[in-house]
């Protein structure tokens, strides 16, 4: 086991260098750099541009920039944001936290909804309830999240026009006058703003997870030991939850590690449409500005989390499933 873990970690090293270099290369391949837009400004003299360029290290060859950045990275320093004039981690972290306000509840909600739907679909296969639920899951899968967000905004605003009541806010993370609220009210205010984005962010993923659960459960229910359990007269509830469900849920343990990088990679389009100050709009801005180290730093963090997550997945899997052995 220890050798397996060590070998996995050794394998991570070339992947890490490859992916960081790829990320760095992609950003460098984009035409121009952070200062290109500044050059268009007639008030900024070419001397200033040249000074800034050497200050930011943008006048060095690409490999030198990469090596310097890698050097900083090995010192656990993600670099410096051009646009915000601050260390990357300081700039990214608040945005990531904002995203987590959506991502964490949405992930919990996802598992709470999708797994029961999958189990129900397997136990009552082809019943009316199964058909309706899987149809709805497919609807959720097929709606582009930005469209769902637009529809939600439209419906909420129409309700507001008709009744004068805004059930849930449609944009942003805080109300005006947020600063003056007592701490508890501030929390409530953010939670109130987060409801719609959380629901929209969850809708897309329910289908995939519940279909997986349903398929797993069906497969396990067809096994001989389930027939044995029924034959020896166990209550159906015990058969389902002690024998079938516990085995069917094993593959999901493998997906838990994958949640780690998704924690910081944000809720996607919902954040853009609903003006949530999360990581997605921030990252889009950084790309538009060619804020080199913000992009590279963020990609690196999610990369490291992904690699750790995959490792955790495998270890968890070996832990819960005694049939799996790593040599």
């Amino acid at each position, binding site marked *: 086991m220890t050798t397996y873990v060590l070998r996995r970690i050794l394998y991570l090293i*070339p*992947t890490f260098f*490859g*992916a960081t270099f*790829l*990320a760095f290369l*992609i*950003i460098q*391949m*984009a*035409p121009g750099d952070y200062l290109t837009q500044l050059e268009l400004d007639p008030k900024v003299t070419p001397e200033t541009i040249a000074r800034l360029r050497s200050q930011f290290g943008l006048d060095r060859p690409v*490999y*030198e920039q990469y*090596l*310097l950045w*890698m*050097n900083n990275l*090995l*010192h656990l320093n993600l670099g410096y944001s051009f646009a915000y004039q601050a260390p990357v981690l300081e700039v990214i972290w608040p945005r990531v936290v904002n995203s987590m306000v959506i991502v964490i509840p949405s992930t919990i909600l996802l598992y709470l909804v999708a797994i029961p739907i999958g189990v129900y679909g397997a136990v009552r296969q082809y019943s009316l309830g199964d058909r309706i639920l899987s*149809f709805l899951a*497919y*609807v959720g*899968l*097929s*709606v*582009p999240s*930005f*469209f769902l967000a*637009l*529809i939600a*905004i*439209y419906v909420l*605003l*129409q309700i507001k*026009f008709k009744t004068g009541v805004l059930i849930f806010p*449609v*944009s942003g993370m805080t109300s005006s006058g947020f600063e003056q609220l007592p701490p508890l009210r501030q929390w409530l205010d953010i939670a109130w703003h987060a409801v719609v984005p959380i629901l929209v962010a969850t809708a897309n993923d329910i289908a995939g997870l519940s279909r997986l659960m349903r398929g797993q459960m069906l497969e396990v229910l067809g096994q001989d030991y389930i027939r044995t359990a029924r034959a020896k007269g166990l209550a159906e509830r015990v058969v389902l939850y002690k024998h079938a469900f516990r085995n069917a849920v094993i593959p999901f343990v493998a997906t838990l590690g994958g949640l780690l*990088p998704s924690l910081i*990679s944000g809720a*996607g*389009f919902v954040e*853009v*449409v609903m003006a949530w100050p999360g990581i*997605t709009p921030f*990252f*889009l801005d950084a*790309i*538009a500005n*060619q804020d080199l180290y913000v*992009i590279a730093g*963020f*990609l690196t963090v*999610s*990369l490291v989390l*992904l*690699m750790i997550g995959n490792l955790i997945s495998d270890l968890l899997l070996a832990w819960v499933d005694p049939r799996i052995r790593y040599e």
Partner: protein
Amino acid sequence: MERASTSQFAVALRQFRKHRLAVWGGRILLVLYLMAAFAGFFSPYDPNYYELYPPKGHHPPTRIHFVDPETGRLTRPFVYATKRSIDPVTLQPRYEEDPSQGKFYVRFFVRAPEQPYTIFRVFRSDLRLFGVDPPGRIFLMGTDNFGRDLFSRVVYGGQVSLTIGILSALVSFALGLLLGGIAGYFSGRPFRLSLPPSAWRGVGLLLGPLSLLLWLGVAAAALFLAFSFARLSPGKDLFSLGIDALVVLLGVLAAGAILYRLFREPIRLDPDDLIMRTVEIIAAIPSLFLLISLRAVFPTNIDPLLTFYLVVGLLGFIGWGGLARVVRGIVLSVREMDYVQAARALGASDGRIIARHVLPATASYVIVSLSLTIPGFILGESGLSFLGLGVTEPYTSWGLLLQAAQQGGFASFTDRPWVLWPGFFIFLSVLSWNFLGDGLRDALDPRRRQ
């Protein structure tokens, strides 16, 4: 000899028909693709046509009347011309029906010589499915800010949205099948990438020195990078010096290992390792961010047609990894089957084994996952276009139309809800593809048959 049993295809077809949602998905897709293929015929106006005077910007969907207001009886459907005024409060245009100009009956199979179109860029025509006589206008889904007919734009946008889905799926499948196939088939049979001097004979006399030079270059590059790292390192404390020493050591070790290996035995590279590591690297970067970053590599103001192919290529490039992984697994298991061993024993070449035995084994998986990845690509394109990074004018796609819908803030679609129509088309096509793929999977997988 006549077989009594039904063919594999007939069994699959019967199974497919049982999945009613899949059949409906197929029908809806047929309609959508026909509309996209014959966009000129199905759309009443040219998608880029608008009137300067009187302007028709933000026109709501035209109301079609079925009851004659004078007699109160059912009549042929007709529309009224509209009169434009500006709302004094919101300063937005308002359109009111103007019965004084008379009724404009909805006519079918009308000729519109002033707005000809071409089908498949070859056949010129001006026959349109329906229309009204000018100056009457029929806007089934209203107009955009310029006054262009949104229904026509949705029909034409389908051309881009629907074909990008299929094209990028094909690109990613070509890549996934090829690389996954190579990885699986040649796994454990590494390619030789260098020749030790003792083996320089025949063709090796040319390739040997070349590969030697190449690998010497690689070793030199490793050394150079390691020493540059130390040279550039700004830190002078013990920890920094330790890291520098470690990196230099790594570089020297890597270069030394290459040189040592180069003169003793060939350097071998398992294509399986190479390809699967690449898949891992691509999968390691969140796909939305990778897509956007890659899009940023290319300028946004390039030729629209080029942008179209760029989006196809990018989506295809993002998507091939998962498929390659599965194809590799299938090929790895097929490779060990008795019939493949038998073919090899009979002296079949690699190419023949791949074409006749290995590829057919992946066919049903490929068909199913093709139909299940297309909706993902349609969503990907619409997302990219929605962010303004996808296709550009004069082409249009459903995502781009939706972007226009929300560009003017919330008021732009709460006052004019018809601009949300393109979203329903994305939804409908993705849903239909999902159902179709689901039905195909049930039909082609013997274990899922009922």
